[in-house]
């Protein structure tokens, strides 16, 4: 079974991936969770959800999460793809899922996922990671806690500097 890094209570740990990512041509396994492309989800998602199967959708960086808006409450996870680490579109996709659509399920980072970006990903609302650089949960923890303060509000619960200042009367 594939391993993922997941954050729970602010700590990173290895976790089993109970989902299988299906190619568009691959047959649907008899049981268990599946992750579909957006186009396959649009044709087959309804049936799988009706059958009570846990379903996730994998969104490419040039696809819009708006297309999932009405289905989000029924989705087990949304996987956002980084085809290259320099392609930052998935950061905006994650922000929209969390902030605009209030999605509370898993948002998974897939593709070229590096420890150097773990902190930004966490801040944008990702909570599960398939690292591509051999990073361990320890590396992700370190990245997540490297900065004691943040300047701006995002999709996590960290208080921006201006809120900290208002509290301490600084």
């Amino acid at each position, binding site marked *: 079974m594939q391993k993922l890094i997941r954050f729970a209570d602010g700590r990173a740990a290895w976790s089993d991936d109970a989902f299988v990512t299906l190619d568009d041509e691959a047959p649907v396994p008899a049981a268990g969770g599946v992750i579909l492309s957006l186009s396959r989800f649009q044709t087959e998602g309804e049936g799988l959800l009706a059958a009570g199967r846990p379903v996730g959708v994998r969104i490419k960086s040039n696809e*819009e999460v708006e297309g999932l808006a009405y289905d989000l409450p029924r989705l087990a996870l949304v996987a956002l793809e980084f085809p290259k*680490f*320099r*392609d*930052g*579109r998935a*950061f*905006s*996709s994650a*922000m929209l899922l969390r*902030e*605009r659509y209030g999605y509370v399920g898993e948002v998974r980072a897939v593709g070229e996922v590096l420890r*150097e*970006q773990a*902190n*930004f*990903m966490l*801040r*944008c609302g990702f909570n599960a990671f398939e690292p591509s650089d051999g990073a361990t949960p320890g590396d992700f923890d370190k990245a997540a806690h*490297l*900065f*004691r*303060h*943040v*300047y*701006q*509000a*995002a999709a996590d619960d960290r208080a921006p*500097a*201006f809120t*900290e*200042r*208002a509290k301490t009367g*600084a």
Partner: protein
Amino acid sequence: MYRYDAIDAEIIADRVSEFRGQVARRLSGDITEDQFKPLRLMNGLYLQLHAYMLRVAIPYGTLDGGKMRRLAEVARKYDKGYGHFTTRTNIQFHWIRLKDAPDILESLADAGLHAIQTSGNCIRNTTADQYAGATAEEIDDPRVWCEAIRQWSTFHPEFSYLPRKFKIAVTAAPHDRTAARLHDIGLILRKERDGGLSFEVIAGGGMGRTPYVGPTIRERLPAEHLLSYLTAILRVYNRYGRRDNIYKARIKILVASLGAEEFARQVEAEWEAMDKTKVDVPTSELARIRSEFAEPAFKDVTGEAFEAAKKADPALARFARNNLAPHKRPGYAIVNISLKAPGEVPGDCSADQMDALATLAERYSFDEIRVTHEQNLVLPHVALDDLPAVYAELKRIGLATPNIALASDIIACPGLDYCALANARAIPIAQRIAERIADPEKAEAVGELKIKISGCINACGHHHVGHIGILGVDKKGEEFYQLTLGGSAAEDARLGDALGPALSAPQVPEAVDLLIDTYLRERAPGERFVDTYARIGVAPFKAAVYAEAH
């Protein structure tokens, strides 16, 4: 000026320790140069032709004596004793060793300086009016808003991997000294009839190989919503800006391809759907920032000593005519310091000069120094009667060149002498032109003439908006230069028009002379070079240059 509190200081310290770890991994071979490249770029460290170059941020171009002294120390200890002020109002050190970089950043951090987001596809240093807080023209202090933008954009989790770099300018005066219409976003602050502040928001300007004067996408944005509106613009750009071609990845290409109206519509839709209260800077924080920019304790100054000194010393009088700008407070002046002494490299400043400037700022300018996008420095608040002493000291350190906005006040990128991207040298061309117009009498007679030189089409020397623009091109391994006329980076922003076929390096200074002669012959009373050009067009200039060149 804004001074870092404990939170700001800890954020920078954390960054230094992160980078120290990354450099250690690189030096031990744990990561390859390929993997290290984006990490060092995020810390302003470039690999250039001869060595590493470190670009240090000078947020909105504002320095104090302590920071300037620290830059001098870095120049002395880790470089060859000088630094280079850039058109982004940052400073670059061109002779850095990788193993020293973490120590340099730590030393800078102790003085409240850093290299965060001085490179990479992220939101870069914000440009502000260098006369902020000193000019009577402004309706608010733009630095307040620049500091809010600095904080919002620093390590922005959503906008650190944009399609391309991103630059914002803020001005609050009718005369635009920031080139706002040539930035990815330009912000012009206005006062509304009800006394409230609003921004005119310009998006999609830029230079480079496809220059655009940016269109206005919103006439009046209530100032308190600045950050949420910027977030909306950046989100639309991050999602829909092109990523398939580095030369088409700036926001100007997206705005031009969608059209300003459609781009604005998408931004507005994004903005309307956003929880603005979460993003916008709270009033309390704005007030805190504003208090950091409180007006200095100006004194009553008669200016009598200054008037007497000017009568006694024509050189001081000339310096005063060319390098001073009016201050909002009677008895004070804004002092421009030219980094364009004839024969010198535009923007270069030695460690000794930096130390002397720090002392001048502390003693005579309420501990403030500004860096301009034209690669000069400013002492923003000097009492008139202190000017003779300030001038004498500037003269002693070789920084009293009385040529602000004159023909020898040339912007030039580092060019082929330093930059791996360049096609041609820029600095020697600037030097040759400046030498030919070194006679201050002649330079003053010619008046305002902005010459801008880029060593390649990336346009770091802003040639598109030069009154005379000079672009270095490579023709079968030889350096040639294309000239443009009539550009402007000010409130009347405009791209220059091509003059004619490219010229060889030795022909360029000669051609500039001929252009100047043509202007002097044709000008009507009160006209600047660029005004005469606008009236008579390119033909007489072209005839003058190419009649001689062939």
